[in-house]
């Protein structure tokens, strides 16, 4: 029998706010344990939550970017369960009245475009972090209370690759909206994965397993591959799937059962009496809608029409908002969009890949790149020199014109000097000259190369070519 999988994702995204969801403590990452804490986020007696309006705004912005319907009445609920990472032993979350409903994410897998529907987005507070030291454990409450947005998809993905593509697309949109840093190393995005299998053609979904707390996209991909195989094997060997929560062990490459449904928590949700409901007026939503950033697809189309760059270039550049912004700033400064695009798509992306750096970590600025493009276009430098200078700017910053001057990298465009070198090369390479005259075009390339060698790479290759042809009587 052939089986198909049904996959749904719950993605937890840390929002980019200065302070926590219900108190004034800082959300910055990497501080000493338990230094960003107060009676509220430690669950002290008598402390009360106060809503962070910015977190509400960022969630609504995300909802608008993802095509959700924004609830004009929403509320918070208490979700009760005992665990040491939970200061109050209940989490303030949203149960039946989330901020955003519906929406979806477009993905492309194997050249095929597909829209993955979403159920909802709700807002909640993050929990603390348990740290284990062999014979004892500690709890760092710095993370407790950081605003966390939970994006729940419909079970509309059928292959692990679709889940992976969904996550990448979602991350891109959230970065576009600037609602989260989406930094996976800092745990900004964590996923719970729901997965079931059913015989192909069957209309009913199979019993699902939930894989909890995956913090890499690769982990989602690999755990799903494993889990789908496991469930199919189980069914094929005559077994049944039990509804349960599982844990992914990346080192072993396996999922393990954590608890079955009989031991599932009864969260005893009820409305949080310490907070008022969230009532969003139409004009408040409209204001947020008006200030939305351009979506990736719209930006791509605009790059083609406004800058006249090929569709392929526009697609690559608009994939990351920061790259797109970098391109646009450079193109505006130098007026040479295609050259700017070429530099970013080749040199910039290659170096970023090699150094594993993000575009906001690199030293080169749009101003510097614009100048570099102009220098090359004005033939002050040739393309080899341009690449060399790009690497310098990428690693150390600075402005290209001064680097060219300091190092004497200016292209030799002086006709007299070039002619002198051309004559010398012709005299030294009679055989190639004969080949060229006999119609071998490749010989010209060799001769140009020789001129470049004589000039230590600084000759203007176009000028060298025309002078070579001229002196060889063509």
């Amino acid at each position: 029998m052939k089986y198909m999988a049904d996959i749904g994702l719950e993605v937890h995204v840390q929002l980019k706010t200065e302070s926590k969801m219900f108190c004034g403590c800082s959300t910055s990452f990497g501080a000493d344990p338990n230094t960003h804490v107060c009676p509220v986020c430690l669950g002290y007696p008598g402390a009360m939550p106060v809503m962070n309006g910015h977190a509400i705004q960022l969630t609504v912005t995300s909802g608008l970017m993802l095509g959700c319907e924004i609830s004009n009445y929403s509320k918070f609920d208490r979700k009760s369960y005992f665990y040491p990472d939970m200061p109050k032993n209940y989490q303030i979350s949203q149960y039946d009245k989330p901020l955003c409903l519906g929406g979806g994410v477009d993905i492309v897998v194997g050249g095929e475009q597909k829209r993955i529907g979403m159920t909802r987005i709700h807002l909640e507070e993050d929990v603390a972090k348990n740290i284990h030291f062999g014979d004892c454990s500690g709890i760092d409450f710095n993370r407790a209370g950081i605003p966390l947005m939970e994006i729940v998809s419909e079970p509309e993905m059928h292959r692990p690759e679709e889940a992976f593509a969904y996550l990448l697309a979602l991350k891109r949109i959230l970065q576009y909206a600037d609602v989260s840093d989406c930094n996976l190393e800092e745990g900004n995005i964590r996923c719970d994965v729901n997965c079931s299998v059913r015989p192909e053609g069957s209309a009913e979904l199979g019993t699902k397993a939930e894989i909890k707390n995956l913090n890499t996209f690769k982990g989602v991909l690999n755990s799903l591959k494993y889990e789908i195989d496991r469930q199919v094997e189980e069914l094929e060997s005559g077994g049944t799937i039990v509804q349960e929560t599982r844990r992914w062990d990346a080192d072993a490459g396996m999922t393990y059962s954590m608890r079955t449904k009989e031991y599932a928590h009864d969260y005893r949700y009820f409305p949080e009496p310490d907070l008022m409901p969230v009532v969003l007026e139409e004009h408040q939503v409209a204001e947020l809608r008006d200030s939305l950033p351009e979506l990736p697809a719209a930006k791509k189309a605009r790059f083609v029409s406004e800058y006249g760059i090929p569709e392929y270039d526009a697609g690559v550049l608009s994939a990351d908002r920061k790259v797109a912004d970098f391109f646009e700033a450079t193109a505006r400064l130098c007026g040479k969009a295609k050259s700017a695009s070429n530099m970013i798509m080749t040199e910039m992306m290659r170096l970023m890949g090699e150094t594993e750096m993000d575009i906001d970590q690199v030293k080169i600025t749009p101003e510097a790149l614009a100048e570099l493009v102009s220098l090359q276009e004005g033939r002050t430098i040739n393309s080899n020199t341009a690449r060399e200078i790009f690497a310098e700017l990428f690693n150390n910053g600075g402005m290209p014109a001064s680097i060219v001057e300091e190092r004497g990298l200016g292209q030799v465009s002086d006709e007299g000097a070039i002619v002198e070198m051309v004559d010398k090369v012709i005299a030294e390479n009679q055989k190639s000259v004969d080949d060229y005259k006999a119609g071998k075009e490749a010989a010209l390339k060799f001769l140009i190369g020789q001129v470049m060698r004589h000039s230590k790479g600084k000759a203007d290759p176009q000028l060298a070519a025309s002078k070579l042809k001229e002196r060889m009587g063509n």
Partner: protein
Amino acid sequence: MPELSIKTITELLTLLDKGDISSEDIVRDQLAAIASNDAELGAYIWSSEEDAILQAKEADRRRQSGDSAPLLGIPVAVKDVLNVKGQPCTCASRILEGYTAVYDATSIAKLRQAGAVMAGRTNMDEFAMGSTTENSAFKVTKNPADTSRVPGGSSGGSAAAVAGGEAVAALGTDTGGSIRQPASFCGCVGLKPSYGRVSRYGLTAFASSLDQIGPITKTVEDAALLLEAMAGGDPMDSTSLIEPVPAYADRLPDTLAGVKIGLPKEYLGDGLDPEVRAVIEESIKVCEEAGAELVEVSLPHTEYAIATYYVIATAEASANLARFDGVRYGARVAGADPIDMYCRTREAGFGPEVKRRVILGTYVLSSGYYDAYYLRAQKVRTLIRRDFEAAFKQCSVLLSPVTPAPAYKLGEKESDPLQMYLGDIFTVTANLAGICGISVPAGLTAEKLPVGVQFLGPALGEEAVLGAGHVFERAAGRQ
């Protein structure tokens, strides 16, 4: 015999203003009263001479430098459920033994600003759950009017301290009657403000949608002074009301002429102790003589109030008390793993009434039961609120008994919690509806047990209930 701690706030403020006494004199007198009487009365869980004198001296310094804060130098005893920085806050529970408050509740911060001295921690039913103060993990508090009887609860320590001359004034909290009932039992004034009138920030929550902080005092005017200092919106409590705070004490009337007082017929029916009924009937006459017009009103959903209250209060309590787990503060009993530690800590740390209510609250919120209990209770709560809205269209305040009977004997109701819950019938409705109410001493039984009368007003109707209480208090010749 104490001379100063038996006085009212207004009397003491006059003496302080004249320079006849200092705050230190008052506090020393109060400490002496505690030292001589409290072994018998058991009103306080904790008091510190060093801490109180330090605050009193600071108040005296402020006064000398020309500060005229409204409560400058007045000691206030605080129910052990409110956080006062640097003082213990046990909620009369073993589970918070050893816990020292790390911040001031907003109400406390406001009182400090008004110059009050935080003079000690009063006994209470554990986590404010009870009507007799017998649920304290630490001690029994006795009724100063008859030491074989309970002071009421849960703010029994505060009421006993004020009535017994061990406190000038005190703070209590009222979730279902916990200020008004002990005030009635002990013979003092107890005010439950409207929900949200006083910030709850720093009040260890029992039932968040019902809890309110209020004063327990010797006179209505003293209650008005304390309310004025504590009331107002608070950015730390989203449920607090931002409406401006009137000068309650300055605006107390001297007549009830033109005031319509409603008499809810459901509160004056069967089941009322005959002596309590007699005091209430006499109170109605006093109000009429003071100029009030009386109208009969109906609160038809009263019979569902107790059930509704115990569903909502226990549900919220089950979540509110979940934080007491031994992880971050308070008592801890070691266990094999975290869950085992929680079980052992909570088993040892909570008393039987708290356990009973946490279990009840957990049950009513459980999957499959939520709609039948919690959701239904919230719907009935809306009906009860509407009852009051309709009644307040016909009158400005309601008059009713506070409790069906005077103070019980110690131990009398301990074995029958349901019977004890039913004693809350006239007080829980105000919490469910979010309205305000005051208990004012109205008379004595043949055994000289105090009986209070309750005036209820609409949300933010504190002026009306304080006004009615003040005129009644004078007309009844008690002031």
